[in-house]
């Protein structure tokens, strides 16, 4: 299948023959699905293709040369760091090149100034341990400790640990990007020297074009180096314990503690989030979906369903648990202060402290996202939103009610509300709605629900994360801004006039709606007669059809 053979040879000369392949078995090994994040979906089946070739560069200069060669020969390419993000980070065209950046794993830590500098092949759990040993910690996104920190920060990046720092993009300092035309743009202090310690631009900040609330999934260039903020931690290094599958980090309760509280109502949970933020204490505040607790208790999938099928709408809607992380950043005395303030708040709201394990299984180093697939085999977060708690707690019931119409194929979840947490010390309320299904079944309903949720948000005036390439751009574009899509398409035209960088993003979901016949019944928005692709891309797409 391969890619243009002149391009292949030229790229082979850049990286050496051991680091490029077009062997069918190798390329098959890079297939997006059928399992994985957002896999087992119509999008994955309709939009993704097997790579024509895979190359593994080592340096920024390698990446630049590869991109320029692709530009010369019209070879579409997609940047790939772990491939965990599912179909949206895999090829969508035939004869496309995967630029697999796992060999790019340089790492430096500046202990004094609380930042690290990494390449895309470095994952969060590696970083976290290095940080622990230097009195710091890093926010590991909900995507999991196995995600590339660079990729995660460019596209997603939220976690309960974001309580103090908030938006993922705030954690990005200087960075280096190979643009789709092969030019290297350095941002932040890297623009004017070799030290990536600071992220703001010279004047307007071009980090603004690399992502919005969520990212552009690699369709506007390849980040090859990024400095990332770490946060000051406390001096006790959490120690791992246990044998798989029961491994956990042991926390010194005098300096780091998770505490669970049962609360009398959903409103009191909302209040707890707001009041704890207002009191400016803590390291994380979150309400997790009830079924996550069943996952944590379950040894296996069957155990999970034994537990979960005992729950009812009533039992779930009457179970209110908030989970708070306290960190003794300053001292044990400060930890005590935080705890007393927290208890004051909980008591005022009628809550009660529950016995909580002095360990962390899920956030500091493991970020247990892999467990999301245990229940049904397929999963995606259909939205993750950050505005205020006012929005968050209104949005949950909207999703819950819409989802009921699409169950099945979606998992019966007793109308559980989803995941809430506090960010930026309660200034922001975060809400995430996760859906699960069995990909062996008819999943058309899942694809439809996904787009219907975007329509629901528009109807209700809610601000979702999944804009840009995640949803049909011509649906969300006119609604938000309004007209944000025109700017994204304009930037695409400016920096990638050939649409060679991960085509056909950012219009991939629009394409999916056109191509998948079961999506036609949900399409009730305007699209242009032809998408604004360059002629060459249009021709290639015609040929592929």
């Amino acid at each position, binding site marked *: 299948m391969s890619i243009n053979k002149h391009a292949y040879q030229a790229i082979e000369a850049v990286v050496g023959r051991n680091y490029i392949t077009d062997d069918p078995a190798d390329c098959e090994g890079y297939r997006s699905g059928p399992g994985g994040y957002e896999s087992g979906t119509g999008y994955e089946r309709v939009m993704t293709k097997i790579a024509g070739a895979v190359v593994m560069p080592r340096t920024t200069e390698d990446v630049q040369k590869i991109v320029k060669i692709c530009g010369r020969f019209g070879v579409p390419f997609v940047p790939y760091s772990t491939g965990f993000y599912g179909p949206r980070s895999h090829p969508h065209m035939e004869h496309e090149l995967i630029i697999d950046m796992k060999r790019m794993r340089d790492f430096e830590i500046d202990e*004094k*100034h609380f930042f690290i500098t990494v390449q895309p092949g470095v994952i969060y759990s590696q970083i976290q341990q290095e940080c622990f040993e230097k*009195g710091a910690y890093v926010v590991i996104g909900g995507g999991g400790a196995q995600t590339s920190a660079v990729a995660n920060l460019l596209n997603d990046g939220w976690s309960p640990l974001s309580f103090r*720092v908030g*938006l993922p993009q705030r954690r990005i300092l200087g960075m280096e990007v190979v643009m789709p035309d092969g*030019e290297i*743009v*350095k941002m932040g*202090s890297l*623009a*004017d020297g070799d*030290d990536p*310690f600071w992220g*703001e*631009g*010279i*004047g*307007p*900040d*071009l*980090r*603004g074009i690399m*992502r*919005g*609330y*969520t990212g552009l999934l690699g369709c506007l260039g390849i980040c090859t180096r990024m400095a990332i*903020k770490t946060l000051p931690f406390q001096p006790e290094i959490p120690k791992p314990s246990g044998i798989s599958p029961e491994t956990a980090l042991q926390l010194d309760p005098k300096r780091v503690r998770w505490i669970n509280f049962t609360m009398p109502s959903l409103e009191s949970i909302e209040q707890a989030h*707001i009041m704890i933020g*207002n*009191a*400016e204490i803590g390291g994380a505040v979150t309400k997790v979906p009830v079924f996550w607790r069943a996952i944590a208790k379950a040894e296996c999938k069957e155990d999970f369903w034994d537990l979960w099928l005992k729950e009812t709408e009533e039992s779930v809607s009457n179970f209110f648990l908030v989970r708070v992380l306290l960190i003794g*950043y*300053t*001292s044990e*005395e*400060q930890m005590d*202060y935080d705890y*007393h*303030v927290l208890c*004051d708040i909980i008591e005022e709201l009628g809550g009660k402290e529950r016995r909580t394990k002095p360990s962390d299984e899920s956030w500091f180093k493991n970020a247990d996202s892999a467990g999301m697939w245990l229940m049904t085999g397929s999963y995606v977060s259909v939205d993750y939103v950050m*505005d205020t708690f*006012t*929005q968050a707690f*209104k949005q949950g019931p909207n999703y819950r009610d819409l989802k009921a119409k699409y169950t099945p194929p979606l998992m019966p979840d007793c109308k559980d509300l989803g995941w809430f947490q506090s960010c*930026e*010390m309660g*200034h922001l*309320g975060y809400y995430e709605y996760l859906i699960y299904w069995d990909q062996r079944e008819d999943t058309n309903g899942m694809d439809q629900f996904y787009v219907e949720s975007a329509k629901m948000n528009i*109807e209700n*005036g*809610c*601000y979702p994360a999944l*804009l840009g390439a995640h949803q049909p751009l011509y649906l969300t574009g006119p609604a*938000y*801004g*309004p*007209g*944000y*899509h025109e700017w994204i398409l304009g930037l695409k035209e400016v*920096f990638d006039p050939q649409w060679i960088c991960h085509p056909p993003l950012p219009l991939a979901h629009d394409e999916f709606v056109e191509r998948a016949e079961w999506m036609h019944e949900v399409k009730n928005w305007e699209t242009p007669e032809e998408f604004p692709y360059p002629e060459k891309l249009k021709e290639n797409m015609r040929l592929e059809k």
Partner: protein
Amino acid sequence: MDILKDLAAIVGTEFATQDPSVLSDYVSDLSFTEGSRPEAVVFPGKTEEVSSIVRWANEKNIPLIPVSSPIHLYGTTVPKQGGVIVNMKRFDEIYEIDKVNRLVRFGVGVSWEKLTAALKAEGMRVIMPLAPREERAVATDHLEREVTTSMVYDYGEPTQSMEVVFPNGDVFRTGSASAPKYPYSPARGANPAGPGLDFYRLLQCAQGTMGIVTWMSLKIQSIPLIDKIKFAPLDDLGEGISYLYRILPRRIGQECLILNRVDLAALLAEDTAEFEKMRGRLPEYTLILTISGLIRRPEEKIAYEEHFLEDVMKNEFPQIVLTDYLPGFPGADKKLMNILRTAWPKERPYWKSVPKGAYQDLFFITRPERVPEFIERMKHVAGEISYPFDEIGIYEQPIEHNRACQLQFTFYYDPDCEESADTVKSVWKKAFESMHDAGGYFTRPYGETAERLYDRAASYTAALKKVKALFDPNNVMNPGNLCF
């Protein structure tokens, strides 16, 4: 083309003028920037009017220079290619103070005076730069990414959403305010990010070249119930900076800054005579740190911070002596605490005009450990042109637990003395070049600095120009600034 007629048709005759006495206000500002006279000044009162003005400007190819503050510091509002001043002062409404979600939304013409008073009445405050003029527009300072004195919040800046009229005349809301039906939507505009791109980042430090912001929202905090201010004289600045590396990551303090005797004297003195006396008596550098008890158990918070500080001083930094008062200056503690939490009243001469009447700032971002090195450099530069180093104000502002800092030098001069002004121009320029060569990171390219900064950052500049060309193909928005 009758500019006045066209503008009056949009905003009404009362709000457009070509009165020379009004126009002349915009020919210069407190910087050394020289520019041209605008052709008119227009005062829109509604977003739709701003949009119409921008569309008109594109049609007529006339530059627009947005202005929201009555005081201009950096030359950004001085027309470089003629054009029309769009004065946003009528956007002076506070639209909402949301105490539950802790945000405030206000028009770009709202002053520090108005905003801080309104917030105070609700028991709230917004983090702020050091002693901004109270008549200055809050939005301007946050759009310009003025560094705040509060360094304890991991999220850094308080900026949330904005409404902007883009250079093509489109009205756009950034962040979660972009949601349909806003402001009647569940989305409250608290999230600055998105939609799709981080538009707000393109608007910050843009000096009005990427559009005209009409309102913005900021995070607000509760006013602490207890505040204590601490001082430490620093004979050895390096030691003081090491001390900050030790304590600030432990999340100690609300505000923290280091001032040299010149700047501290300027801040505290009532007049020039007192300034000279104080300057002579103050230590070379003073560390100023506030610790606060918040809305719950305030005494306990103060206690744990003080215990920590005592511990560190006793065991690690015995030479740092923190006191609740400024030794030798009774009453300075209360005065400074007030200065740190309020804007500078317009009735009083601005503190930076106390020494000699006028001033020029030079500031950049760096690693705190490099501050002594940059100060030595400044000594050298001053010495080269015989400028008295001991008359330069020095202000180090730690940022986010001291992961970085802003270092600011202030050159004071007599505005009525041409020679004095020329000397400052000269030393300022040399100093800028020297600091830049040494790796000082200048994120706010005002005036002359822009050319050198953008030349050196060639790849960034090229990309930035492409973005600008997309948003403003006719380059009507404040041309001649940055690299545009």
